[in-house]
């Protein structure tokens, strides 16, 4: 997985892919802020939606501990 993001390249987040989304939640289960995820505003909205959907399906926790 590349750590640098190309601004021109669109990233897509899939709510089914809990394995990839795990990188973007904290130990408490919170969604990582943009300053840490280095996402564009658009990508961050998509990420947040994906994580929230994954939470509904119990793929990710609403909160941990």
């Amino acid at each position, binding site marked *: 997985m590349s750590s640098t993001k190309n601004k021109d390249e669109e990233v897509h987040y*899939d*709510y*089914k*892919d*809990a*394995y*990839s989304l795990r990188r973007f939640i904290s130990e408490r289960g919170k969604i990582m802020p943009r300053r840490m995820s280095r996402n564009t505003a658009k990508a961050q909205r998509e990420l947040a939606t994906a994580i929230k*959907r994954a*939470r*509904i*399906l*119990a*793929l*990710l*926790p*609403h909160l941990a501990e």
Partner: protein
Amino acid sequence: MIYNEYETTYITVPELGEDVQQQLLEKVGDIIKENDGEVFVQDPWGRRRLAYPINNHNHGYYVCLNYVGPSTLPAELERVMRLDDKIIRYLTVKLGYNINTDNAREEATVRHQQWVEKREAQAASMDRPRRGGSR
């Protein structure tokens, strides 16, 4: 008539037999067909651990369906799933509005293929021991 593309994932209680699981899948498929819809992809993920307990269950059996249908279809499908106590959770997502069925069918198959490959690669990497201290 406008046809939209949807994706519904449902979670059943884990201790159902193979045949009951199959019956349920057929029942859901029939509802889609009866309501002028078409199933593109049926993807049973199988048994997984839930990130938090639902109705005192720690595990669930996941099934994901990709289909097209009129906008009245998801409502009917969710109504049936709500009444079925074998289903403990469901989520429907709209993937496309007023789509061309033939194009969408093709795209759905490709998309599903890619997702399955990605998923298998992830499963393989999880079995390998981690190198170094990276998380």
